[in-house]
């Protein structure tokens, strides 16, 4: 870097991050060195180019809030549904197990219920595996 001004100090000078004492020291070096003046002019030009680049995202863009809100509140809904179903199922099993029905009927009904639940769980698991391994699941457009 030109003179006794390090590249870091030059950046901090350009970005207004130096203390007043440091700034005075850099400005004194700047007055004494044409090479440093050239460097500063180049980087100031670059900064000015960025001012031209400054842009404002279109005001027509829809806020992401609706989508964010749906996603952040969804787990609460699922938790509530799962908790409700679990309570009802436990109660149902209790009522069924303590009812004065023939044990063979209980066994047959229980086997049907467990079979349906197992089939349901295996379908969900299969769908989840397919979704997880789908290389195109992130393609929206």
């Amino acid at each position, binding site marked *: 870097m030109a003179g006794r001004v390090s*590249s*870091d100090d030059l950046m901090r000078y350009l970005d207004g991050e130096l203390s007043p004492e440091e700034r005075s020291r850099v400005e004194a070096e700047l007055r004494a060195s044409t090479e440093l003046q050239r460097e500063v002019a180049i*980087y100031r030009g*670059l900064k000015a180019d*960025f001012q*031209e*680049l400054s*842009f404002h*995202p279109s005001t027509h863009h829809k806020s992401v809030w609706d989508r*964010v809100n749906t996603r952040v509140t969804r787990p609460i809904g699922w938790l509530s549904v799962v908790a409700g179903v679990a309570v009802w199922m436990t109660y149902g099993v209790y009522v069924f197990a303590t009812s004065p029905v023939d044990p063979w009927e209980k066994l047959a009904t229980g086997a049907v219920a467990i079979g349906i639940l197992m089939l349901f769980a295996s379908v969900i698991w299969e769908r989840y595996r397919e979704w997880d391994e789908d290389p195109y699941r992130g393609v929206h457009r």
Partner: protein
Amino acid sequence: MQPELERELVRKCKSGDAKFYEPLVRAYEPVGLRLAIAMMGNVEDAQDALQEAFIKTYDTLHRFDLRRPFGPWFFQILRNQCRDMLRSRKARFNIEALDEKVDQRPGDAERGPERTRQRNAARELLWKGLERIGTEHREILVLKELEGFRYGEIAQILEIPEGTVASRLFHARHALREVLLAMNAESP
């Protein structure tokens, strides 16, 4: 947004009340979107990154230290989200769609067609330069030059020591300068 109000909103969100998250999203969305557009290079991917960043921020609020400001923490998550998306197959820096999706700056119409054409050409050159210098250089330039963050804030967002910011900026600016010179030489 006032720091006290922001802290109170974060505190309420931490206790599980999602409705208090809306003012935070609305407050940080404009800057977040600009930052994401500059990182991703197109509006659609930027919106996806922004949405995911807000969701990840909410999901990790329990780890957030209320003594710290919310902004740099959110921008850090957004920056990581943009980087993840650029690394994955889901997105790539693509400047093609930018011009039509981004509003012109105030006063563009008064500059006249020739000035506007020159400005658009310079803008396109700079975007292409930013595309070529890679994510690491681009992100620090975007934070400094487009969003005007102070070195301390940049250090928090990029998770680097504050003393490293100046050196990273120097290398990024130097790389951009070299790329722009090469591009100018390519197109006489």
